[in-house]
């Protein structure tokens, strides 16, 4: 049971934790330097062992603590979720320690959060983009990134016609189906042989 005693014993002696609220589930904020050891404690001693979700929230360009990582862990014993907010110390180059070593499930979630927000997870075994392609230059879920793309002085006419915004198409090099067909497949995308065009060379008519 998640009751007051449980919360008291969890918070007791851990001054890096703060109780935020208990509206839909127990919500704590945790200092990033103690995150890994606290997660280990949750997994081994408190039966919170099923990491269901890890994501981040961008509180806006002007916010004091811009990025916070939000972790949801489920306990099969308590039949309850636990939410941990971790503020990223630096707004310019946010980074927090990776909890991959504690919860293998965090691996892909952390890659996604890095992809979408640019938050670096220190000591992650394989921190690279997962949903966008490797050469994609932006972190699309940041609040300063507009839905239609970043506006440019000389937009592409066909894209502007559809989106109604003065934007270029997203750079596709290295992206889905646009990598060069000649390099090794373990390093590039597979593609049909006759589509030898890239961004630099025109598609053969």
């Amino acid at each position, binding site marked *: 049971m998640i009751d007051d005693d449980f919360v008291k014993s969890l918070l007791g002696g851990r001054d890096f934790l703060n109780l935020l609220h208990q*509206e*839909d*589930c127990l*919500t704590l904020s945790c200092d990033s330097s103690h995150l890994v050891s606290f997660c280990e404690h949750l997994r081994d001693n408190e039966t919170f*062992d*099923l*990491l*269901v*979700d890890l*994501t981040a*929230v*961008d509180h806006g360009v002007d916010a004091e603590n811009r990025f916070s990582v*939000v972790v*949801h862990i489920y306990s*099969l014993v308590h*039949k309850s*979720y636990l*939410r941990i907010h971790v503020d990223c110390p630096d707004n310019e180059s946010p980074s927090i320690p990776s909890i991959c070593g504690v*919860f*293998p*499930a965090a*691996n*892909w979630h952390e890659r*996604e959060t890095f992809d*979408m927000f640019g938050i670096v997870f220190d000591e992650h075994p394989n921190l690279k*983009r*997962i*949903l*966008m*392609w490797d050469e994609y230059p932006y972190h*699309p*879920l940041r609040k300063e*990134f507009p*839905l239609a793309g970043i506006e440019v002085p000389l937009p592409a006419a066909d894209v502007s016609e559809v989106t109604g915004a003065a934007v270029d198409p997203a750079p596709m090099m290295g992206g*889905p189906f646009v990598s060069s067909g000649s390099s*090794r*497949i*373990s390093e590039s995308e*597979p593609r*049909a042989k006759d589509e030898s065009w890239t961004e630099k060379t025109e598609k053969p008519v």
Partner: protein
Amino acid sequence: MSTTVKEVQVGDVGARAEMHADDGKMTLNVGPSHPTTHGVLRLLMELDGDRITRCEPVLGYLHRGDEKIAENMTYNQFVPYTDRLDYLAPLANNVAYAITVEKLAGVQLPERCEAIRVLICEMARISSHLLGMGVFGMDAGAWTPFMYTFTEREKLYTLFEELTGARFTTSYTRIGGVARDIPDGWLPKVEKFVDELPKALDEVEKLLTRNRIFLDRTEGIGTISKEDAIAFGITGPNLRASGVDLDLRKDKPYSGYEKYEFDVPIGTRGDCYDRYLVRIEEVRQSILIIKQVIATMPTGLWYAEDAKKIFAPQKEKIMTSMEELIQNFMIVTEGPQVPPGEVYFEAENPKGALGFYLVSKGGGVPYRLKIRAPSFCNLSILEKLAPGHMLSDITVILGSLDFVMGECDR
């Protein structure tokens, strides 16, 4: 790297391979467009002969930026996007999303609305599992069961069409209710369908469950231990097949699931065969739930009437009453008004626990909506699961995991 590499021509269009001359290993690329990958999953595998030594899933080919889109539209406008997550069970996605927002808004739903939602969730589960099992059989080389399950699924889609107006992209729920009441004479048709379904299931079972070839290809293949399943965050039938008793309909009942009696099938070994058995039993349990819902379907309203800032009033009232006209105008232009706060809700969907993490700063537009897709989490074990298996096992493993890329990539 100075490794000598020789490109190998493979018969399949979606596959290319290269040989490494020094260690004799081969890199094989499968997908992103390949029949065994059920969509646009790409697998980069390293093979030693026929044995997989490394498997790296490459995702993102169906990424549409749903979470970014959600931040730019009102709550009801996002409902159609939830259809396109797990597009094999759109009704269940609609319900999970609506409940998330309602939880934050504090909306109490009438009993009839909750019962309708349970009914459509279970119908979605049947439809999704029917496809999952049929395609799984096909992956293992059995074509015929697919024909049987698809025939039944077609009947379900006709029922969905009658209820929602669409067969595939249903968009049936609204925040605070459902789009329309169930039509007259629809429930008896559902009852007739669930009465006849067990017969078709028996036929599928006759073709698959004790089929020697199917057993040889699935038993002991792709075994996920209890510990691994929890560590990798697997949910749904895949988790239960590994012997973990976690069903959110039982453990954290929502939408009135606690009123209905049903069993949660649990596997013992966690191999591909167990995952098949769990799914087929879940369909039988869903039939039981549907029968109970139909027998006890409450009368009354199918939307929360007192949620004036959440659910738009009925059309007749909008046309005749000034107050309702304003109310409708506000909901359509500004969106349902949700107080500031955060909420996380997971529903037991056919593929696993579909979670929504919603952060609101007030108003009609979400500040942040994170979609926790079960297929995304379930696939993450592939890197650990595939090595050690033969190449031909990968089709069976993928089929048994029953994922949807629309949900995985979002």
